[in-house]
């Protein structure tokens, strides 16, 4: 009896594993190089600075808020883009991507111009300041700069999530008397839970790395609008490479912890 000779899978795993390992190795080496560059004392000194502590707090809070807002906006927008064909859909689709392709500094300048361009004798900033809600150079500017970019990623993620979900369940619910809103709230949204967690994660991570728009729109005022990415810049600017690397490592650790926790939460709920 002639047997089919199975060819070995080893080359496949060697090639794919090798390529993957190169990238993983690069990231690991980057982190190791940072760790190698500084001493434990540098780390302790950096984290004892009250400016860094304030930046850490602002970063955590602003990234979380920006990510929540991104999910709030990204979920309905992603749903509309995935489920419906409406006039101007291509335009909306293109506009959503603009914050992703725009150079960060341009985004910052654009936000600054938006809030300070006179219209009907006042500016958006003046109007908001009149309501005791100053934005430019205050924490809302940090959140807005982070949100503008992070939301674009959230929309993309939610759109893919809804596109991958079978619309039949929503259609059945509608035949049973459910409204479109009801179908969205009671069928689509609970099913999209994993996507929501993914969108939140991506938005949060993107907000963490945001720097250019924040520097221009929110400034880098210590203890007020300084986030960790600004801290790296500020420490670098005065030659405190050790501190800059320490803060960078903190960002890496923070990002890793948040991503792991969020993924665990997402998987657990869907398990």
């Amino acid at each position, binding site marked *: 009896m002639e047997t089919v000779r199975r060819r070995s899978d080893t080359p496949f795993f060697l090639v794919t594993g090798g390529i993957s390992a190169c990238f993983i190795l690069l990231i690991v080496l980057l982190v190791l190089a940072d760790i190698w560059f500084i001493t434990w004392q540098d780390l302790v000194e950096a984290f004892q600075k009250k400016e860094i502590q304030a930046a850490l707090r602002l970063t955590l809070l602003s990234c979380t808020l920006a990510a929540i807002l991104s999910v709030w906006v990204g979920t309905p927008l992603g749903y509309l883009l995935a489920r419906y064909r409406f006039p101007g859909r291509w335009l909306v689709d293109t506009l959503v991507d603009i914050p992703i392709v725009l150079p960060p*500094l341009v985004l910052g300048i654009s936000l600054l111009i938006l809030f300070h361009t006179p219209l009907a004798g006042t500016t958006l900033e003046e109007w908001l300041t009149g309501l005791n809600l100053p934005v430019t150079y205050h924490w809302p500017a940090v959140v807005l700069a982070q949100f503008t970019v992070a939301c674009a990623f959230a929309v993309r993620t939610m759109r893919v999530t809804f596109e991958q979900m079978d619309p039949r369940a929503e259609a059945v619910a509608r035949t049973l008397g459910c409204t479109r809103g009801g179908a969205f709230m009671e069928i689509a949204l*609970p099913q999209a839970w994993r996507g929501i967690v993914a969108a939140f994660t991506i938005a949060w991570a993107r907000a963490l790395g945001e720097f250019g728009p924040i*520097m221009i729109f929110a400034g880098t005022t210590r203890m007020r609008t300084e986030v960790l990415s600004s801290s790296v810049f500020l420490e670098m600017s005065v030659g405190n490479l050790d501190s800059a690397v320490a803060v960078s490592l903190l960002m890496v650790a923070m990002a890793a912890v948040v991503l792991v926790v969020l993924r665990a939460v997402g998987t657990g709920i869907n398990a």
Partner: protein
Amino acid sequence: MLLSHQTTSKAILSGSIMLAIAMIAMLSRGNRPQPPAKTPSVQPAPQPPLLVYCAASNRAVMEAIVSDYARQYGREVQLQYGPSQTLLSSMSISGNGDLFLPADESFITLARDQELIAEVIPVAQMHAVIAVAQGNPKGIRSLEDLVNPGVRLIQARPDAAAIGQLTQQVLSQQGKWSQLEQATLAFRPSITDVAGDVVVGAADATILYDAVLHTFPKLEAVEIAELAEANSNVAIAVVSASKQPRAALHFARYVAARDRGLKRYEEFGFKPAVGDPWSDYPELTIFAAARLRPAIDQSLIEFEQREGVKITRVYHDCGSLVAQMKAGQHPDVYFADDKECMENLPELFPNPVEISQNELVILVQQGNPYGIKTLLDLSQPGIRVGVGHPKQCEMGWLTQNTLRAGGVEREVMANLTVQSPSGEMLVNKMLAGSLDSAVVYASQAARADGKLDTIRITGMPWWLARQTVAVAADSRHRQLANRLLERLDSADSKQAFLVEGFRWSAPTGAR
């Protein structure tokens, strides 16, 4: 199942809303401006915090100064850092901020061209040097060593960083730039980038400011003759749009005070500028010709209010003021009615600036009943003529010289009715009708505008009085006095001089 889904949706919504509210609450609570530190003797200032656009290279020294200032005055100063060009753009678009402290003077020029800043106060000087790793492992001692193929040279971009621009400018003049440019491995956008490259070992040498080395202890400087003249100035400027210029100037003066901020600059490796001594409420003294009072008084009042200083004015005639100064009473600023007065004291006022001119005119009754057109016409029989006394006032002396130069002195003096110690008295006599004509300054004639007619002196040379102003060489507050000079040389000041009948002749015009 449906119930479970409804619960999930509600959980997502309510959970995210509660989380968002919590984030906003914590952000609002934690990022309010910190209350300023209080000192027992000083009341906390009610003003909002000052916002300073500060170049990242000045961060360390400015944080020390802000801390000193807060301790002494309890006022919060917020430092917003960034590359100078970025700060300039932010300032331009937002229209916010109180002070601008860029990496070097070139950005001050840019900001001034865009009318973004008002007063500028020099702070320090930086010098270009070669920077190498501690111990100078490549043994770089000269420009020739720098272009050696074995040396990895990184430079800041001339189009993006001030140090790059300065290096290019200085070495181009010596014909050595292209050689260095070719030997440069890479150009980087900022001074901190190139310094960082040498620190981490990505480059062997770079060119940067000596003051920057203070914050990079792993680097050392190598001075070379080719860069001996490569210096840049650091200055702090008040933002034109500042809503609290007085507070901004108070802090700027503190930064630029030789016994306050400049001491810190010296500690941080800068070569400090020659600053004024610190005074919370400084006082200037100005000696000025009495005739100039209407033209300058408003400027002085506005300067006092904007700067938060007191100006003691001494108005008098040229002779009295010069006598007082020769007797040892030295003002900070002297504004002379004529350059002749200023030239009496060349050592005390070495750099006078001409601000305006005052020409002699013929004053006649309204409608010019005698048809006077020239000085010679004053010799017509029966005309009552008044002139200034040549020894009692400068205007009289100028009138005498003008009549002599025109060859009409004898003819005009034949009709002389009165010689007055001041032009103002002649104008009053004209208004009272006791004179038909008088020779006075245009500025004096302007006070009777609409009641008397003025005839410009034509057909013969006439002498102008040139009003000059100068800061005393021994003034304790030279920087402050120089800013007063700038105020007197401004567009608003020009307007006041023109209204008073002077001709504006300041070289810089409306600054």
